């Protein structure tokens, strides 16, 4: 079974309690329709299982298949520098149906970012490097498509709905 490499660190974007018993890592692509489908289900998982879940998102943009996937990942990482990674992450999935190059500034404004800083951060080498490091970690962890989920460090072979079902059964 494929293992998450490297493990979750403080560099990751996490939502939930750090010492939660279940850590879920998603490798996702903002333009991937399957990731878009998984987004509300992941939200439901977080709501249903609350404090038991720590949810981590890592970037896995398939640039050749999805032209806006990489710039979208950059937008989320740039928003993170203003403490608003999750706001941008959510806004990108909620507006996936109209993803294009003009959307990023619009969403940045909607979630209340300093636009000038956001635009400057979007061109930073470190921001690009973060996305590429995530991608490389995904490859080493055996990501074979998006979304790919890891539960407590082990690859979960299934979609978000299967994950929900598995969690429901294991916590009953």
């Amino acid at each position, binding site marked *: 079974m*494929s293992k998450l490499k490297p493990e979750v660190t403080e560099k990751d974007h996490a939502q939930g309690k750090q010492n939660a018993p279940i850590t879920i890592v998603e490798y996702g692509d903002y333009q991937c329709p399957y990731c878009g489908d998984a987004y509300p289900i992941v939200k439901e998982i977080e709501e249903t299982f609350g404090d038991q879940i720590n949810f981590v998102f890592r970037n896995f943009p398939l640039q050749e298949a999805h032209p806006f996937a990489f710039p979208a990942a950059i937008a989320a990482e740039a928003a993170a520098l203003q403490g608003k990674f999750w706001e941008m992450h959510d806004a990108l999935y909620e507006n996936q149906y109209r993803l294009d190059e003009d959307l990023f500034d619009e969403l940045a404004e909607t979630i209340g970012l300093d636009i000038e800083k956001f635009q400057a951060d979007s061109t930073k080498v470190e921001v690009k490097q973060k996305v590429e490091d995530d991608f490389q970690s995904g490859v080493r962890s055996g990501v074979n498509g998006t979304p790919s989920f890891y539960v407590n460090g082990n690859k979960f072979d299934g979609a978000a709905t299967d994950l929900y079902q598995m969690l429901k059964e294991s916590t009953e």
Partner: protein
Amino acid sequence: MLEKGTKAPDFELNATPDQKIKLTDFLGKNVILAFYPADWSPVCSDQMALYNEMLKYFSKHDAQIFGISVDSVWCHLAFEKDRNLHFPLLADFEPKGAVSKAYGVYDEGVGESKRALFVIDKEGEIAWSYLSPTAVNPGADGILDALEALDKK
């Protein structure tokens, strides 16, 4: 299927209607062969899309990747164009599946290649091979592990 330490059988297959790829022309370079059942089928498409994103990682290890299936060159061309693929797909078309058979990864029942990966070293010897369940996309971590091991030799 052929295992580590075996000499990789040579072949010459069409990548396009007028371009042939001969394995022994790539001596001195690492070669990755990704046999897969068919163009267009969902799992293969994900797998080829992933390798497409991996090309710069492969080239860091001085490796060239080829996809191989029994589809014809015209089918491969349309598939490459549709998926924006930047590496050659070889047609194991006539005689059908001959190369897949030579590598021991032909599924006689369905008449397609199995989903199998080979990493061939610069001397033309198989350094790593892996047979994946047909329905499972094997990802790329095994390939990278094998290439890293070769770099250390």
